[in-house]
């Protein structure tokens, strides 16, 4: 299986973290809700969840990052809206939420994104893999 390396995507979003704030994060959500009539956004502000989940017609269309300007999207329509309202958001477009086809260079991201222990999430060495599903990345940083 060909793996997709998203190391640079993560580093790019982290570099721009200083320009990202709650106001911009909420502005993206408002724009999505205004332009996609059947969209519903879930985000627990009280908890400070790391991602807002965007559902369109009861299916997950994408996730918008709270801590850094990043979006992981399956819907091209959603990707276009995010690009229009926030041009500096790093967008990772995916086709499958649960296929373990993504990799990162841990040596480059480990010191910046500290939460990577889940990637080696099993004690069974025969199952250990460095490739991960993008949804697991989102959940682990939620």
């Amino acid at each position: 299986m060909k793996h997709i390396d998203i190391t640079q995507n993560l580093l790019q979003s982290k570099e721009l973290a200083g320009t990202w704030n709650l106001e911009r994060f909420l502005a993206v959500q408002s724009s999505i809700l205004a332009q996609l009539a059947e969209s519903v956004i879930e985000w627990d502000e009280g908890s400070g969840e790391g991602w807002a989940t965007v559902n369109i017609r009861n299916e997950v269309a994408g996730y918008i990052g709270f801590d850094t300007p990043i979006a992981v999207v399956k819907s091209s329509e959603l990707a276009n809206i995010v690009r229009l309202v926030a041009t500096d958001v790093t967008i990772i477009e995916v086709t499958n939420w649960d296929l373990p086809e993504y990799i990162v260079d841990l040596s480059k991201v480990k010191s910046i994104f500290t939460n990577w222990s889940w990637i080696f999430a099993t004690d069974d060495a025969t199952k250990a893999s460095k490739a991960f599903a993008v949804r697991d990345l989102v959940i682990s940083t939620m």
Partner: protein
Amino acid sequence: MKRKELFCMTSFTVVAATCFASVSFAVIDNVQIHNSTMNPSFRIAGASLGEVMCSTGVSKKATFTPVAKSRTKEGRLTDGKFVIDKPGMEPHQTGSLSGGKSQFLQAYVGEAAEILILDAARFADQNCGWNSSNGKAKVLVTNGPIGVLASNGQKTSWVNVYKTSTNFVHGSPGSPQE
């Protein structure tokens, strides 16, 4: 054990084996809180029957039997199915809301938080189910509160639990279910 609060109904509580001498939470009758510093197997005995709340907003009566905890060879706390993702919980145990993350109360930091999350995950498995879109379940701790919300500083008795496809879990104090 001290009785923290009185409820009119029989309350189910997610047992948090608080190991700290300063606070001892009353759970409910017939449930023993085992001090994990005394027993490395973190055994929690007892079962309870009462009314519980899931994120669907539907309360239901259920029996919850906490399972024994242990450590993986990497030192991660586990209940045999779920494994604690410790880094995922650290932002919620800094003691400060300035990072925009909800915070566990002092009695629920460290190992106590991990036990709470493992129990909440097990409870969600048995009763609530999981939101497949974000791997999340919401569980009410009826002898809370357990944390403080980042948005308004209010205390909360709700726990958000998140699990990956490989059953790594972490959690945080969450907003009340609307």
